């Protein structure tokens, strides 16, 4: 029987097969399957809807670039620079992604640390307010002081903070450490200008002497870079001092790779040549009360001595000085780096001093006085705005972090050491559970870019005061909290009554706009048609607000020259500069830490706590931007230390260690380790990847709170 059944089976199978093939079924099936692969249910489908174009401005960094948004059904799908305005950076181009970033917070949270990982549990806004009020009470009771860390000073919300703090022990608003333009405070101190601030007039400068200002990596207004890269380079020269062969160095006319930490000596050396060869503006320089002492001091720093310390050839120093003098006006910058922060006070004093002897103060193409924007409301008493290093250590009992309009990269330790021993309470306003906010105990979710009205006061490098407004394009998400109303709530809870009739941030901004309108100075630049009309021609405050909301910018009238009370070239850094001027040759590297760690970052990597996940195109999917885990060495250095490219290693400083991958590049200064401060896993949207110790946390912090360079070593794993 067996074979009989087998035969039948075979027949059946064969018949079935043939029958199936003959039927249309298989063909139809394959076709359907192929079509199916083209619209798998899990492939996202782009939105459909009516196309509109709306104007706003980018609030993701202080530059406040104009933005033209292409919207579908009212929601932006792409951002670009309007015709005639500066192009957007990667951060700005992807700003409309941020409201949907995985790190986005939609409810107040309490941050707890378990198994050395951070966890968030939602809390009610009320609880946050009560706890904050309690902390304020405790501070009043003598536990410590209260401070606000403001990542974007100059916004009208700062006035709200300042009036909240005015009554509190040691209450002060701290400008975010290492932020762009921070060094101008030093120059302002040297000039002791009593009101307003200084503005940079790149427009008319013929030479830009940049000490580490990463102009090509986003520093100051993008217009400057455009001017440097634009076809008509002829009329502006760039001299760049930087141990890194950075993009800025690439576009510089002269690159001076001074040894890290010797910038002050180089500045003094340049001053020496300028004075010796009588290339300075005597009249302006003589205004300085300590000019005699200054010239005596710099006279010690001959080009040769400077060369020995900085590693820049003497004749290069001399040539540079002459170049500067030849192409005046020449503005000298002590540029902060988005990753490396600012130079120490002494260095800044030495560098910026050059401006004073070149007579840049109050001269076109130099530094102009810039009256402050009108305050949003009058207030009897306001807490001061200070630099972090003006706070005593271990003093702050309650720290409020205002990261509602952006963030900055700095070692948390510079702030942490200001907190009282027990740590105190840290409350952050931030849209994301990322960046500085991760160090807070409580986080209140602020709206993101495009979700609310943001204020764009002039960048530090604008010659005159300006104001723009970033108009919201997306309805604010549920669970967000407005910073101003949070201030109000806290004030109410701790029975502080705040001046002014404002409830929300918009109110503050509107009030300020109204005041600008009342002042009546300046003009309104419309992005749409590039037309500029005097403010006087704008009928009502509301009309002005409307214009600004439409992407226009208010610009103050050209300002009067700088009224300096008492110019000082050495100021409070005199002592240190004396020591430096002895030119005790370059600070010896300790044998234990033979390398110099140089953390640096382009601005678009740090200005916001998070970036669009699409930025992986630059960091992960290509090697254009180095990952924060890549330590780059000069091949020679690597050979000396027997480190091979591609190997894993541990980068160690006195402050700690992180795991890195070694890379080599001829562009790196021998003995230096370059590390890019760039978005980590969370900032790029990988909420599940384990968070690594960040490079800044192991950087050494100098006495004036800087972290540009640290002694380090690499140990191959």
């Amino acid at each position, binding site marked *: 029987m067996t*074979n009989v059944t087998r035969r039948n089976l075979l027949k059946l199978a064969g018949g079935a097969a043939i029958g199936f093939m003959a039927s249309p079924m298989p063909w139809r099936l*394959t076709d359907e*399957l*192929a079509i199916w692969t083209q619209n798998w249910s899990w492939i996202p489908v782009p939105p459909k809807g009516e196309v509109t174009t709306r104007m706003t401005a980018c609030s993701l960094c202080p530059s406040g670039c104009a933005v033209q948004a292409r919207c579908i059904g009212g929601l932006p799908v792409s951002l670009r620079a309007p015709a005639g305005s500066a192009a957007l950076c990667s951060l700005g181009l992807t700003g409309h992604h941020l409201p949907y970033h995985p790190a986005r917070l939609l409810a107040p949270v309490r941050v707890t640390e378990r198994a050395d990982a951070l966890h968030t549990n939602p809390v009610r806004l009320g609880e946050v307010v009560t706890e904050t009020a309690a902390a304020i009470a405790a501070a009043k009771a003598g536990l410590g002081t209260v401070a606000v860390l403001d990542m974007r000073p100059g916004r009208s919300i700062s006035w709200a903070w300042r009036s909240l703090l005015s009554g509190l022990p040691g209450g002060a608003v701290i400008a975010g450490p290492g932020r762009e333009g921070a060094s101008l405070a030093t120059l302002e101190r040297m000039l002791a200008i009593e009101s307003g601030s200084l503005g940079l007039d790149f427009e008319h400068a013929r030479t830009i002497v940049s000490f580490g200002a990463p102009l090509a990596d986003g520093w100051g207004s993008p217009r400057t870079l455009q001017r440097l890269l634009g076809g008509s380079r002829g009329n502006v020269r760039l001299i760049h001092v930087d141990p890194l062969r950075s993009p800025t160095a690439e576009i510089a006319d002269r690159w001076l790779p001074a040894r890290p930490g010797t910038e002050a000596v180089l500045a003094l050396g340049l001053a020496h040549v300028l004075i010796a060869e009588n290339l300075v503006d005597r009249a302006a320089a003589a205004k300085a009360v300590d000019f005699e002492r200054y010239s005596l001091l710099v006279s010690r720093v001959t080009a040769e001595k400077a060369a020995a310390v900085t590693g820049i050839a003497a004749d290069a120093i001399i040539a540079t000085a002459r170049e500067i003098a030849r192409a005046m006006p020449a503005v000298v910058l002590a540029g902060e780096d988005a990753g490396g922060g600012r130079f120490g006070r002494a260095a800044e004093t030495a560098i910026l001093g050059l401006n004073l002897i070149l007579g840049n103060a109050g001269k076109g193409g130099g530094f102009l006085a810039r009256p402050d924007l009108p305050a949003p409301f009058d207030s009897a008493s306001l807490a001061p705005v200070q630099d972090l290093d003006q706070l005593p250590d271990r003093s702050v009992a309650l720290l409020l972090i205002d990261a509602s309009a952006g963030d900055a990269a700095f070692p948390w330790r510079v702030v942490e050491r200001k907190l009282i021993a027990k740590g105190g309470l840290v409350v952050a306003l931030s849209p994301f559970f990322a960046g500085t906010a991760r160090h807070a105990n409580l986080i209140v979710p602020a709206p993101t870019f495009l979700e609310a009205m943001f204020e764009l006061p002039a960048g530090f490098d604008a010659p005159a005061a300006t104001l723009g407004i970033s108009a919201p394009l997306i309805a604010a998400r549920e669970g967000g909290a407005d910073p101003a109303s949070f201030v109000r709530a806290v004030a109410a809870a701790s029975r502080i009554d705040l001046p002014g009739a404002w409830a929300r941030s918009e109110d503050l901004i509107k009030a300020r706009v109204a005041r600008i309108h009342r002042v009546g100075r300046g003009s309104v630049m419309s992005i749409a048609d590039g037309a500029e009309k005097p403010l006087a021609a704008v009928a009502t405050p509301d009309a002005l607000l409307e214009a600004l909301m439409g992407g226009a910018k208010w610009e103050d009238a050209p300002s009067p020259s700088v009224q300096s009370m008492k110019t000082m070239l050495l100021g409070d850094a005199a002592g240190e500069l004396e020591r430096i001027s002895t030119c005790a040759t370059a600070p010896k590297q300790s044998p234990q830490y033979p390398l110099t760690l140089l953390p640096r970052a382009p601005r678009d990597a740090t200005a916001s706590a998070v970036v669009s996940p699409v930025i992986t195109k630059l960091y992960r999917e290509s090697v254009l931007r180095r990952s924060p885990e890549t330590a780059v060495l000069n091949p020679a250095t690597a050979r000396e230390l027997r480190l091979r490219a591609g190997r894993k290693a541990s980068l160690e400083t006195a402050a700690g260690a992180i795991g890195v991958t070694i890379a080599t590049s001829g562009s790196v200064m021998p003995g230096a380790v370059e590390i890019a401060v760039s978005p980590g896993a969370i900032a790029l949207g990988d909420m599940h990847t384990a968070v690594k110790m960040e490079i800044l946390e192991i950087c050494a912090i100098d006495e004036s709170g800087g972290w540009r360079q640290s002694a380090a070593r690499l140990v191959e794993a």
Partner: protein
Amino acid sequence: MLGIGLFAIGLCLIKGLNQTNMDNRFAFGLWIFLDLTVIALGAGAFFTGFLLYILRRDELRAVINSAVVLGFICYSGAILVLMVDVGQPLRAWFTFWHPNVHSMLTEVTFCITCYLAVLAIEYAPIVLRNRQLRKVPSFLVFEFELHKVMPVLAAVGTFLSFFHQGSLGGLYGVLQGRPFAYRDGFAIWPSTFFLFILSAIATGPAFVLVTTWAVSKISSKRLVQPSVYRILAMVSGWLLVTYVGFKGIDTLVWLNRTVPRTGAIPAQFYAWQPFGTWVLFAEIVLFGLVPALILIAGARRRSFALQLTGSLLACAGVALNRFVMTIQTLAVPTLKFEPFMLYWPSWQEVATFLAVAAYGVILYSLSFRYLKLFPHERDLQQY
């Protein structure tokens, strides 16, 4: 092994090819390399058929069945892997619907599928002669009739095979964007087209020899007369000699004319370790000329040991050649600021291939157990 392999295949099909270690630079990897090798070795099927049915070398009747089964396994296995290798297997049939006749790959696809069908048909009579199936009279009769038309099929098979073996070579020879692979040629065919045909038909018989020997070792039975081995060795040997000859000429032309025209520097191709010039030497001499001579000598001296070593070397040689064409081509950078790259297959890739290998072994041993792969087997048992 089969199980793990199937699991790996599942992963690749469901989760996508991110399961492999291939990347945008190594668009081809282990799979393509082994496919090419396997198909080259599978050439034994058509070439033995060609010798037997067209050139009437009747001694080879002793191995034809085994050769056909081998061919069938090699081709079906290769196609199986290809189906996993492509990103959208469900669209495989597009090639037949929107063929780009200028693409070597189209030719390969068409020929391989046709040839697999032919192999299946050639396989059928062997199956139908099974002791149980033959009791069904219609099968036996059909087999008988099929057998009469076999030469036609053999001819067709030969034609197809010649073409796709060639096209597989053309696959790389036409890549003018890859100076390392690009070759001048005749008419529309780059030289690799012909070299691949030669190397395939040269190693095909060698592979048949090796497998036959292996099977008889494992089953500890004598399967074919020594004379058959000798013929295979002889054929393989002489073809290999011609191959090496042409390969040598081709290499010289390539290094001295083709490459300079593309602006590339030949020396740079071998500047990256581990792919030094030794590769070239191994490819042409160590695994080309040497086995050829060994094979011929072995056939002459009637020394089976020599024939076997020669065959093994020859098979290794064709594998090396396919490896160079596939992997080294992709490893060598074209842009100056692009790095030299290497890649290691992921376990999924390896497992997938092992699964196919397992399938081959199983299918072959089943065929060996139930079908008469070596007609003379019984006789040789007797005396």
